[in-house]
């Protein structure tokens, strides 16, 4: 799909890139890892393209980070790219989850695992911090001006602190943000 340009990655490197994203992401740090791999390390997308993909991945139903992988794969290499990123992201975690699940079903009732669960909790706390840190990095580079800062704050507070459902917040904030961006467009 589209013209080949210098940044267009091979299917193998797309697959490999998303294997590492899938492997490295513990407890919800996936967006952080995706940006690090796709924007920072490999330069396949710039921040603006990444942010559009991230927001669209949330607007469409389904697991955001799987959506984001399919979106990025499609953008870069069309349907084969979507297959490469989807299977890259999910294959190894799938094997790990199924193995852990089988172990869990066999070991039910055994007293082991207290240390295991404590360290998992610690890694989960770090993963949440990585998401927040990615937000700070993205905001520093891409958010300029009072209106965008206000939109960031409104979305953050409405969902993250007040606990409003995401669908309702998007239904209000997307039209508002679109209208304000349209008012401020380059003529």
């Amino acid at each position: 799909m589209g013209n080949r340009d210098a940044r267009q990655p091979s299917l193998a490197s797309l697959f490999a890139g998303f294997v590492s994203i899938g492997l490295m992401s513990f407890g919800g740090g996936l967006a952080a890892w995706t940006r690090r791999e796709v924007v920072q390390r490999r330069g396949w997308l710039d921040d603006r393209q990444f942010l559009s993909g991230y927001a669209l991945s949330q607007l469409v139903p389904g697991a955001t980070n799987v959506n984001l992988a399919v979106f990025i794969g499609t953008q870069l290499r069309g349907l084969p790219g979507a297959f490469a990123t989807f299977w890259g992201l999910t294959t190894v975690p799938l094997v790990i989850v199924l193995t852990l699940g089988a172990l869990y079903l066999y070991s039910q009732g055994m007293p082991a695992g207290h240390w295991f669960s404590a360290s998992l909790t610690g890694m989960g706390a770090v993963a949440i911090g990585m998401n927040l840190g990615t937000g700070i990095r993205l905001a520093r580079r891409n958010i300029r001006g009072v209106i965008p800062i206000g939109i960031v704050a409104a979305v953050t507070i409405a969902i993250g602190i007040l606990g409003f459902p995401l669908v309702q917040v998007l239904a209000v904030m997307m039209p508002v943000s679109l209208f304000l961006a349209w008012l401020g467009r380059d003529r």
Partner: protein
Amino acid sequence: MIVTLLHLAWLFAGLSMLAFGGGAGVIPDMQRAAVDVHQWMTAREFLDMFAISRAAPGPGSLIVVLIGQKAAGMAGAAVSFLAMFLPSCLVVYFVARGWHRAANAPWRAVVERALAPVAVGLTFASGLALARGTEEGLTLYGITAASTVAFAYTNIHPIALLAMGAAIALAVGG
């Protein structure tokens, strides 16, 4: 067996289309279906599977393969995986193609400018919501706060951060 597989396919294909804003939002629906309606597992087992899917690398929605595995073995896991991801991935694929075709359209630049602050807000919001939903005690909040700053302002490797988080949680609570 076939009936169970059809139940799994129907359940997760439906939830796939309802999971706006990510997979976490439909976890309560999964719990109700797996524990109360179909009685594939106990509530305790569901919570353990939730913990496993969050602790393992990769998308948290992979909990569906654990539910499928418990309900109907490997066939159940495969059916659940496809039902959860195929419908939403198809939608994303067509959205992405439309987006790609509009590369030079003026409206896309406007939409991109509008999406950026919403996406940054969603990044903060998901972090805060996860922390509020899963964390108890000063230690975990401290780990999250410290790794937020470290990840945003230094180039420390994420694996090192994860290892430190695990070590601190073990030392304090293990």
